[in-house]
Each structure stands twice: as C-alpha cells, then as structure tokens.
C-alpha cells in the first residue's frame, strides 16, 4: 500500500456507528487519538487493519473506519501477526485491554515482542475487567477491592513496561487518555516504528474502577519528555518502568537506538510481493525437484 505522506482529515476514520462505551470512558480518548494519528500520517483506511481481542476496549475496531477484526479474548496479537505476515503492505494495529493483553494474552504479548513483528499494540489499561463488570486484573494494584477480591487483591501488580523491556521490545511507551495530543504523538511514533511498538494507555474505567480515576492519574502522571530522560538508555527506561508512586511517568520510555529488524523484514519469503499477491503455482521444474527428493 502506498502511504501518501499527506495528512488526511481525521473524520476519514470515523464510521457511522458511534461507540457504545459508558459516557466518560477513557477509551473515547484512545480512539480519538487514533483518528488523529492515522490522519496525521495520511494513512488510507483500506490499508489499515485494526485487530482486537474481547473487552470494552476491544470493541474499538467497530468504531474505527478501516479494515478490522474483533477476534478472541487474548488473541489479538497472534491474529494480527498472521495478518501482517500474509499482507506486509498493511499497517497493522492491535488493540485491547489489560485483561486481554496482560492476562489471558500475556504469552503472545511477550513472544510478539521477542519475535518483533511490525505491529503497533495499543493497550487500554484500566486496571480492571470492564466488560465483565469489574473483576480484578493483572494490573490491578495490590490491595485493590474488586468484585472478585472483596478483601483486596492479594497478588502483585503486573508491570507491562518492565516486561516489554525484559522482552526486547524496541519501542516502549505509555500514554494517558486524558492527554490526547501526547497520546497522538506516541501513536504516530509507534506506527512509524518498524517493529513491535507497545503503547500502554491509562484509560480509566469510570464505571468499575473507582480508584484509578481521571483525577487519580492527573495528580500523578508526568511526561518523560519534560524531563532529561533519554529513551535510548535501557537502564533509565527500566527505572521509569518501575516508577509507581506519587509520580507516574508517561511518554516514550524506551526506543532502541539500534533496533533489530522486524521478523517480517527478515523472513526470506516476505521480501518480494506481499504473500496475498503471489500466485499459487509452483513451476513444473521445481515440482520435479521436490519429487526427486523422494526418490
């Protein structure tokens, strides 16, 4: 797909169907940022595939005008990987929630980073299971009371940024849906990054998470771009990833200055035309060679 460098109108990506998220849900901001970023990059909706799992957040492809897939809970990344490998000319964006990506889908998340597939992964991290109406999530804070932890969560809180760094991810960022411009910027860089890009987004669930609310985040988040943080420094990035206190960093936490090529750039079968545009036939002499291996 030829990517016109000319920006288009964000409304190009707005479908007729309006989102049915709860009024005030953080996911609206996530979606708006994506309209902006794709428009800014001048993407053609027909050249974009958005793949999600299952969850409130995973309803996003239904509210975005492009090709889309609303797949299975936890399986957005494998689906997106297969799709990208089959058609490397598409811009592939995977989206979902914390339960989807860091709970049931965690193995795929880590391996996708290790594999380094050229997919931008946007996780709407509300630290709760929204669609199923308020159960504990791997990213729920220790001690948090939810429908399934009435006495408080006894488990540790999963740290997606630290895991991403430990998994060799070349682009690790965190945004906040209350800061839409900043978010758009992170998306833009993530989509442009050749290889797996993680954008974890604080996207408050106004209905079921009464702790990590908009004000809660507003009080705490600060942009690493406003500090002397060097996103090329792995150790500094790990420090940022571990910061979870009165101050919580958002922004581009890490970008590998010498990133490994993505798997789609390495696989010999993918260096010519996209697979979907290749013919089905194998030349008769190749066929003969294959047969002779059996003789």
């Amino acid at each position, binding site marked *: 797909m030829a990517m016109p460098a000319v920006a288009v109108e964000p409304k190009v990506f707005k479908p007729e169907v309006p989102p049915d998220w709860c009024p005030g849900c953080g996911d609206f901001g996530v979606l708006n940022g994506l309209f902006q970023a794709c428009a800014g990059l001048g993407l053609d909706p027909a050249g974009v*595939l958005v793949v999600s799992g299952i969850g409130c957040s995973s309803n996003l492809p*239904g509210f975005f005008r492009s090709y889309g*897939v609303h797949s299975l809970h936890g399986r957005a990344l494998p689906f997106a990987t*297969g799709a990208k490998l089959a058609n490397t000319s598409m811009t592939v964006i995977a989206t979902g929630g914390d339960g989807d990506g860091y709970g049931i889908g965690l193995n795929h998340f880590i391996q996708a980073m290790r594999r380094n597939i050229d997919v931008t992964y946007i996780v709407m991290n509300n630290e709760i299971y929204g669609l199923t109406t308020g159960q504990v999530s791997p990213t729920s804070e220790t001690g948090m009371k939810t429908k399934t932890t009435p006495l408080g969560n006894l488990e540790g809180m999963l740290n997606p940024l630290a895991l991403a760094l430990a998994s060799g991810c070349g682009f690790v960022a965190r945004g906040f849906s209350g800061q839409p411009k900043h978010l758009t910027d992170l998306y833009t860089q993530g989509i442009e990054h050749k290889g797996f890009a993680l954008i974890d987004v604080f996207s408050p669930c106004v209905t079921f998470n009464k702790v990590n609310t908009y004000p809660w985040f507003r009080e705490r988040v600060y942009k690493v771009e406003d500090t002397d943080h060097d996103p090329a420094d792995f150790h500094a990035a790990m420090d940022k990833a571990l910061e979870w206190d009165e101050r919580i960093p958002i922004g581009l936490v890490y970008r590998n200055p010498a990133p490994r090529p993505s798997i789609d750039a390495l696989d010999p079968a993918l260096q010519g035309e996209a697979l979907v545009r290749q013919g089905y036939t194998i030349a008769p002499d190749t066929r003969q060679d294959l047969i002779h291996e059996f*003789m």
Partner: protein
Amino acid sequence: MSQPELIVGVGGAAGDGVASAGNTLVLSLARQGIAAYSYNSYQSVIRGGHSWLRLRFSADKPLGVGDQVDAIIALNQDTLDRHLQELKPGGLVLYNGGKLTPSYDPPPGVQLCALPVPELCPASKRLPVMQNTVAVGALIQLMGLDIGGLESVLQTTFAKKPAVVESNIAAAQAGYDYAAANFTPPATQLQPTDQKWAQASGNHLFAMGAALAGCKFYVAYPMSPATHILEWFANHAQRLNICVRQVEDEISVINMAIGAGHMGVRSMCATSGGGFALMTEAIGMAGIIETPVVAINVMRAGPSTGVPTKTEQADLNQAFGASQGDFQRVIIAPLSMTDCFNTPHEAFNVAERYQIPVIILSDLLMSEGSETVDPALLDVEFPIDRGEVITEANGGEEPYLRYKNTPSGISPRALPGLPGHLYVSGTDEHDEDGVLISDVYTDPVRRKKMVDKRVRKMETVTSYLPAPELDGPAEADVTLVGWGSTWGTIVEAAETLRQEGVSTNHLQIKFLVPLHVDEISSILGRSRRIIIVENNQGGQFARHLRAETGIVADGHIRKYDGEPFEPKHIVAGVKDVLGGTQVVEVLSTEPGWRTDHPTGTSGPWAGLRVDEETKTFA
C-alpha cells in the same frame, strides 16, 4: 495381491541405524521398480530403546503393513530375542554372527542366517553400522534381486565421500555373495519392473501437497506425530516462498493461521490431539467470521499425552465437538499416504469456497509410515477454487456487505486491503454489514437470519465433495466399513476374505463431516452384514454413522493397543463377528509368544509371559 510380496522387519536400538538401513533397502528396491510400505514401531526415547521397522515389498503396490514377517535384519541381540519367534515358516533372519546368537530355537522352518560380518567387512570393527550394509546386500540377494539398485543408492547417499561409497559397495557385495553361497532364498522372489517409485511419508506428502495447492502460510508448534510437516515446510520455505513459522503454542498457531487466511492466503497448520484441543476455541472463530483455514490433527494414541509414538483414530469426537455453538466445518480423513498428497488441495478448495474451517484427521500410521508413490501422481497442477472473492476495487456506490444474506449462504469475500470494501469481522454475532448484533438489547430476527445464512452454506457441500463408493461385489455377505488410514489394510483383508470364501465388499469413508448420508444409506441399506473397523476403543465412527444415518452395524472390530491393524486381525475379526461376537477387540500379540512385545530384555518386566487365558502377565 497377485504379485509376490515379502515383509521384512529391521530391528535395533535408536542409534543402530534402523531407519537408514530401511530407507536404503526401500530406495534400492524402488529403483528396480518394486514398491514398498513401511511402518516403524519405536520407543519414545532419544537414544537406546528398541525400534522395529516393518517393510513390505511387492511389484504391486502394498497398501499396508501386512501380517507376519518373512525376513528379519536383527541389528542387536534384543531384536533377535524379541522377534525371532514372529517369523513365518520359511522365513529367515539375518544377523551379525560375530556378535549375536539366538537365545531360543527359531519357529519350525525358519532359517538362521548368521553373517560373519567381521570377516566379510573388517571395517565394521571400527564402524559398527557397516554391518547394516552387509545385511542389506545379503537380503537383496535372497530376495532374488540384482545389487545394482543398492549400489546406485549408496552412490547417491554418500555422493560427497567417494571412499565411503567404495567401502559400502564392497560390504554390500560381500553380504550379497555370502548369502548366494550359504543361504537358501525364500520361496517368494521379487520381480524387478520398469515402474519408477518415489517414497514418502504421509506427513511429507501433506506438506508437498499443500505447497502445490498454493499454501503460502504454514505455522505450527512441534508435536509428534505432526512435526515432520513443519520440518518439510521449514526446509522448503525459502525456495518455495512460503512463510513458515514455529510459534509459542497451538493457540497462537491457529490464530495466526486464521489471521493469514483472513487476509486471503491459503493458510495451514498441523498438530496432534492435545495441541488441537488448544486450537478449538479459534476454530469456532473461523466459523463465525467465515475465514477459510485448514488444520490437520495427526492422531496418536490418547487420551491426553497417551502413547505419543503409537497410532490410533480416536479424535473424531474432538474434531466434531471442537468449539462451542453450532457452526459449519468440514472434516476429512485421508485414506492413505498418497491420499495425504491430494487432501490439502481438496481442503483448501472447500475451505475457500464455503469460507469455513476444514479439519483433516490423519494418524501416526500414515504420518510417520511411508509408502512408495508413482511420481506421476505427484507431478500435478491442482485446480484452484477460491470461491467468490472480490478483487476489483469498488466505485463506492453500494455499501459492501461482507456477510450478505445470499440464497446460497455464501457472501462474496473482499480481502482486507481492497479499497471500497471496508468492514470489521467480529466473533460476536453480526449483521450482514458486520455490525454486531450482540451489542443490542435483543434481535431475534437478525440473529436467526445470520445463523440460517451460515447453515445454508452447507446445503451444497456434499455434492461438491466426492461421495464414497463401494469396493468389491455389489452383493456380499459382509460389508466392511472403515474411515481414514485403515483403507489399505481393509482392502487387503477383504481380498483375503473373498479368497477364503467369505463374500465381502468394502466402504471407506474419507469425508466425515458432512457425511454423504444419502449415498451411504443407499449403499449400506443393501448390505447383509455391516462390520465397522476402527482403530479406537469407543467406536467413535460407529457412533457418528448411527447419529447421521441411523445405521447400526452388526459387528465392530476395534483396536486400541497402539499398533495398527494387520489384515489378519480383520480377517479373524470378521470370522469372530460371523461367529456371534459383536465387538471384537484386537490385540497385537499372539498367544504363546515368549515376550509379547514386552518392555525390554532387562529391567523389571524381563522374561514375563502372557497368560494366554487372561492376556495379563503371569
């Protein structure tokens, strides 16, 4: 089988070169126009243990592993101890007389062919596997064949090492000459022919068949006995421009395969039962988003981890019940290794035409065993049926309905990337345009419309797929019914039964879902006595047949001890059914065998014998 045949067993420990000796033998004979079928019973250890490769040779292509062995190459003492008793009268055993001695008297009429390997091939002292070449040379002589085939194979095998070629040819010749001078050839002698043969396993034929059918994406997680498909693809990925990936688990495998299929490539994956269990959720996704995908389940003896190196046909229930809810799928069980070559092409065509997941059920017997195939059968260009695919960008006048409610139930498919056809595919129930129905309060009418649309797709599938045909006389006392890999063995058993005066015909089912109910009912409606043969305990196919057609068989021959059927099991089983037994459970052992294939000549079970009455160990 009108042409003479010989069954050879090659036994040894892992590392003794059983497989390569067998391979050399098969290729040598293939170059002289003799066909083969082979199956290896091996142990799930990487080194040591015991391996028992059975090879069946004939100018007429053998269709199965056959019954008792005519000749044995014993590469170690263990093999002599275990298998000497299994030889047919008139049979012979070849072994290194410098090392091994039979520990009991052979069955009457069996010839002990001790090869003085240290003298015939002094190099074998340094390189013990040289004994294999001596034995293969001797066996070829005893089969009545020229040594030329073997020489040419040794030349190709060691092409880069002339000295090795030379020493091997000398060893082979020494064995050949020694056998000519000292042993009596068996009564049966093989006749060379002009036919060319390729030799391949069902797994390799799956892989090559899929590649020739346009498979562009293969993804898998290793699992015996399906792993060789992945390995063939990995080895040919670059040359054939196929994206081949091993990923973290079978869940990822199937979701990637569906992701690729969704974009428009022919996409395939394979695993065995336990891995397939993990794939089931996504099979349902392919059903509702109507994405073509092909998943192979190479069955092994279950349940659970079960007996990973043994064969069984007990995953039909799993394939049938894969994923929740009602949706459309096709299940195909190829009938032979050669049929494995054709099946991916049929599977892709039906998957793409009907936009459904297709499950192929193979088994360890077919996937790890191998047979010779006429190379002309492999030199084909498969017809490609992609179904209704929209390739032209749309002017934009009419909104595109990905799930359009057409009379056929098939909705023309635009591949993502095509301008003017944007849609979102969802695993939630959706309307024709893809917009979710599940997000509304209730919508019985649209919900039913969409279910019905998908159901309607299946109305034409049975006519798209070839119906099974009866083999043998139209009228017979016994109709044998099987499915999948038992085909060849049943064909042979039916022939034997006819020779023994039991009029027998045979119906083998390849397309399990949907079943050709009308054709099968009409064929079996004329049967006097239906006997179902299947390689499992529970009679999963018998149940399926009854569920779909109401047909209740008169008898069942079942085997679930890990070993494949031999024709004699079926012949005896039919007689038992005729004698009044309803369910015959076949066991691969013979009353009186001293070891009953036990677990080793050393260790806690050494020397145990089967109590002939109870079939337990005394």
